[in-house]
């Protein structure tokens, strides 16, 4: 599992690659949470899941945990670039009704800045 973070137009963009499960879910928290503490304004965060080839509810719990943290800070979090398998998982668990989903990283950055 690799987790890479960058800033794009004021958004924290985190790209995940590999399998997100019980073993690796902590890596997402370990990358995102310190970056959130550095922000002085309400954060906007995009999680790019295009490289995730497996995810279970441990991974989804880690994403939901970050969503809650960002929301409590008055910010916004979205995910983008879901594979068909991940989209099915998000729909089965109802996460698509909570977390905004975008087709691409660019759409997500623009969408969050536009207040969607």
């Amino acid at each position: 599992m690799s987790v890479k973070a960058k800033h794009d137009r004021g958004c924290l963009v985190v790209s995940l690659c590999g399998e997100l499960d019980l073993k690796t879910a902590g890596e997402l928290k370990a990358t995102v949470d310190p970056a959130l503490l550095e922000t002085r304004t309400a954060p906007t965060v995009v999680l790019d899941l295009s490289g995730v080839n497996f995810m279970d509810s441990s991974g989804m719990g880690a994403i939901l945990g970050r969503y809650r943290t960002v929301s409590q800070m008055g910010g916004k979090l979205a995910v983008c670039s879901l594979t068909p398998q991940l989209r099915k998982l998000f729909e089965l668990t109802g996460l698509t009704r909570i977390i905004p989903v975008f087709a691409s990283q660019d759409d997500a950055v623009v969408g969050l800045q536009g207040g969607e």
Partner: protein
Amino acid sequence: MHSINRVKMSFQARPDNVGFARVAVACFASQRDDLTVDDIEDIKLVVSEAVSNAIIHGYSGDESKYVTVDCTLYDEGIEVVVEDQGKGMEDVDKAREPAFTTHPERMGMGMTLMEALMTRFEVTSQLGQGTRVVLFKAFGGQGGTDDGTDQE
């Protein structure tokens, strides 16, 4: 049902072994070419959920304990039994409710996913004795109960 092949494995209750378990079961299941890629992905997901539950809830992270996964291929489908000898659950029905969780960083959707993706899903648990999860995926949408009744 007529058993074609069976494999049983036991491994330490470590997060590292969640991936091992799901890939091993997927490899075993792929002996049957009537399973689709989606079926295999579903099996990987539910095995991951059941083994993670055993590690987190059954053993509360005690890595010296063991999880057992017993897989059987039948003419009608594949059965995967995931067992731990951990602390067990007081109320299985409560645990099966969507979004029920005792951990803030978890979704509480593991059992919901197992129920949604499998033809048959059973949980038995005894406090202080452990938990046994039975997952059955029928081939080609067949019903899969031992008594021959259809599930869907």
